[in-house]
């Protein structure tokens, strides 16, 4: 952990040098910023600046209320269902396809254009089309989740295979590895980090798509909760629902990250 190089500052004092012993101060700063934000929020809520902003306490109470209510958990279940279905599909299709693309360079070069396109465009634009075609069902949500996440998962699997250290590849060849041995013992472990990153990123994209879809679809899922609260001007409930949704998403992503850390325990820290 080397210190940042100081900028030649006024009177020769370096900006930005963080001496070891100052660490506690940084922690205090971080906590302080959170506290400051919460305080600002509370103040904004109490002030008559906008009647739409509930205070932190109001939001927290509404949140607790939601957590105790059945509709919330039902909504979470429905959304979770779409998410699981869509992600399962994306993984089942994306990873093998990406691995295949990496193993067969011509196929990879041809298909990558489509996936790069899918990644570049705003996938949300396709949501009305899906709804129009498939109606408002869990299946359409699942398809939207799939569309949002599959391109990333595929491309990351592809990159993982392509980026196998050529040195390791040469080493395996020198030891006369068969193609199957090469794939299982070198390609798969080597591409695992990229695969997992793709999974994580795909999941975060999936959430984005799911939320947009449900906010538009409305009849079910967490989107319904949010839209209901919004249309009934129950701002504390609205803030709470949004907050809980975001926290659920972050929790799932964090869990995935921990899994990643355990699977890749051999990485240098």
């Amino acid at each position, binding site marked *: 952990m080397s210190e940042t190089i100081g900028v030649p500052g006024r009177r020769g004092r370096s900006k930005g040098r963080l001496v070891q012993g100052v660490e506690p101060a940084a922690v205090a700063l971080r906590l302080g910023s959170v506290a400051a934000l919460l305080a600002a929020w509370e103040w904004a809520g109490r002030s008559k600046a906008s009647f739409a902003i509930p205070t932190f306490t109001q939001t927290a109470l509404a949140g607790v209320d939601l957590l105790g209510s059945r509709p919330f958990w039902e909504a979470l279940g429905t959304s979770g269902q779409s998410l699981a279905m869509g992600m399962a599909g994306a993984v089942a299709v994306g990873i093998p396809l990406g691995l295949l693309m990496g193993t067969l360079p011509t196929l990879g070069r041809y298909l990558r254009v489509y996936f790069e396109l899918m990644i570049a465009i705003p996938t949300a634009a396709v949501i009305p089309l899906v709804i129009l075609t498939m109606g408002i069902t869990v299946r359409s949500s699942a398809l939207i989740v799939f569309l949002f996440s599959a391109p990333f998962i595929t491309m990351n699997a592809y990159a993982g295979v392509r980026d196998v*250290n050529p*040195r*390791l590849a*040469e*080493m*395996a*060849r*020198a*030891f*006369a*590895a*068969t193609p199957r*041995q090469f794939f299982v*013992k*070198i390609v798969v*472990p*080597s591409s*695992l980090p990229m695969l997992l990153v793709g999974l994580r990123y795909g999941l975060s994209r999936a959430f984005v798509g799911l939320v947009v879809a449900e906010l538009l679809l409305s009849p079910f899922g967490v989107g319904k909760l949010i839209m209901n609260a919004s249309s009934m001007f129950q701002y504390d409930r609205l803030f709470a629902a949004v907050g809980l949704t975001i926290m659920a998403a972050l929790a799932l992503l964090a869990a995935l990250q921990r899994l990643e850390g355990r699977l*890749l325990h*051999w*990485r*240098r820290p």
Partner: protein
Amino acid sequence: MTAAPAAAPEALEIRVEGVSKVFGAVQALEGVSLTIEAGEFVTFIGPSGCGKTTLLKMIAGLIRPDAGRILIGGRPVEGPGHDRSLVFQDHALMPWTSILRNVAFGLELRGVPKAERQAAARRYIAKVKLTGFEQHYPHQLSGGMQQRAGLARALAVNPRILLMDEPFASVDEQTRRLFQDDLLAVWGEERRTVVFVTHSMEEAVYLSDRVFLISPRPGRLVEVLEVPLPRPRADHGVRGDPGFTRLVERVWDTLKKLQ
């Protein structure tokens, strides 16, 4: 122990016959012919880009010559095989698994059962003095130790021919000298054929029975130098021997003209 050493009964001779190779516009090798006796320790040396590594990889079976052929123990080289082993310049250890499993990798590919291959791996880990580090990951080891692990892996498959591509290039001078002596000690026990590629003239003369000098663009065999210095090299204080210095300067005289 200064009598002429006998080659191991399984060591193989290498015959390079009129080998040429072109990469794009570069004539990496042109009409190279040489013979390496079974059990000999030889070095390829030459300026950068002289095709010595290419030739080494051809012997390993990783690259095909455009012209000519390479015979090992009388049989032409078709690809990588169980009789040859390669030590890489940058260790090429798999970062995701332990040193033990890395060293056992060659044996694993050949279907050797787990208990047996891990026992063999431990033996060779001991030979390169890495005992105690079996469960470590490559990134936890220093550069020198990683190179030693790479050597153990190459030895563990019991090759008839050991091929080494500048294995000590990234190691500091002091460690390098120790490695050279360690390598000669390990080699001395079993006398396989060794082909060693290096940039260092001292290293080439110190380690080898013969030194092959190769020129760059086009890659040609320019000279073959006999190194009649006594073995074991370490015991005889060869580095201080005026004969040694003369040989090194002979090498330099030739290489100078090639730069």
